């Protein structure tokens, strides 16, 4: 086909450019990913016992995950726009992680030194990050689909953002079944699970996000 003919075909009935393309694609897959990870977690591990709902740890987990979902969705949306700068969402994401780490360290320092190891490791440190990785898979699939319909040009970095975002969604789902009450535990092991999905995302990004 000649290029002029191609242009003529593209132009006919093109209509106005779609607006808020990133939000329209990302928001539904994030919501679906959360529902899927929450359902999977509750079905396999059971909802937290009633008293947890009035404990600050549960709301810290959900708040931390929600803040990261917001920042990482912003980051992914910026990276999916060619030529747009992603510096501010990167800083926002870093700030949230650093804040949570500071909260975790502060809570640990308050403890008696004999109680610190237990406060740090809880009862589930060994599997918490891996469960978060597994629970992030549905969100990661959806987010990858959403980003392929946009235009990411830095695939590894975008894959990293997609992984962090999916990891944060998976962490929110895990918060509903996790009965750890330590803030230090959240700061370390939740962050580690989310970081692992980020790394996995950046390794897969170059292949999965091509368009």
């Amino acid at each position, binding site marked *: *086909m000649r290029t002029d003919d191609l242009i*003529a075909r593209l*132009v006919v009935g093109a209509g106005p*450019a779609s607006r808020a393309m990133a939000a329209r694609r990302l928001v539904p897959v994030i919501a679906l990913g959360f529902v899927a990870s929450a359902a999977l977690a509750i079905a396999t591990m059971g909802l937290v016992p009633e008293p947890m709902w009035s404990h600050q740890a549960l709301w810290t987990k959900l708040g931390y995950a929600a803040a990261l979902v917001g920042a990482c969705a912003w980051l992914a949306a910026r990276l999916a726009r*060619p*030529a747009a700068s992603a510096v501010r969402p990167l800083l926002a994401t870093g700030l949230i992680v650093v804040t949570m780490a500071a909260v975790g360290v502060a809570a640990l320092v308050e403890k008696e030194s004999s109680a610190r190891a237990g406060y740090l490791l809880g009862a589930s440190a060994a599997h918490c990050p891996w469960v978060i990785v597994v629970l992030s898979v549905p969100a990661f699939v959806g987010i990858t689909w959403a980003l392929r319909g946009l*235009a990411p040009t830095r695939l590894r970095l975008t894959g990293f953002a997609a992984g962090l975002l999916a990891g944060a969604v998976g962490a929110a789902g895990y918060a509903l079944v996790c009965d750890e009450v330590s803030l230090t535990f959240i700061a370390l092991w939740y962050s580690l699970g989310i970081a692992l999905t980020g790394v996995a995302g950046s390794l897969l990004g170059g292949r999965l996000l091509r*368009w």
Partner: protein
Amino acid sequence: MSKDDFEAELAPLWSRARRGDEAAYRAALTIIAMRLRRYYARRLASRPDATEDLVQETLLALHLKRGTHDPALPVSNWVHAIARYKLVDLWRSHGRHEALHESLDQFTKNLPAREPEALTMPRDMQLLLGKLPDAQRAAIKLIKLEGLTASEASRRTGVSVSALKVQVHRGLRRLSDLVGRPT
């Protein structure tokens, strides 16, 4: 056309096209296609056959992804980012399928470097000449590039002197239309 000229020419058309003005959209895509052709011809000098394919693929991508342009950013930056992405993507898949000897690192390291104008001139010229009808191309080659007089060229080709002059005139006009300069 410099980058700023490109932006100045494209931006008003693009903002009208965003609101659904098809004539403006057509004009914008036409300008972009010329820009892309030069951008790719220079970087794919060893594979001129790939140039037009890549121009078309990029135009299609720009069309499908035009909702990803942030109106707060210059549209030329957006076009260039996508053009560069499609070029790197071609190199990457080319390397994978046809096992080129050059590594991707080699390619990306060389990416921003421009070839000297003097070297790319003949390539551009050939591309442009390739778009002319045979008679016009032959006449321009003989008289303007090889430097024959009209009568020598006439003797060599068997075409009359006046017909050759007409072909040269038409061909040159067409060339200047192709490069987008007023005659």
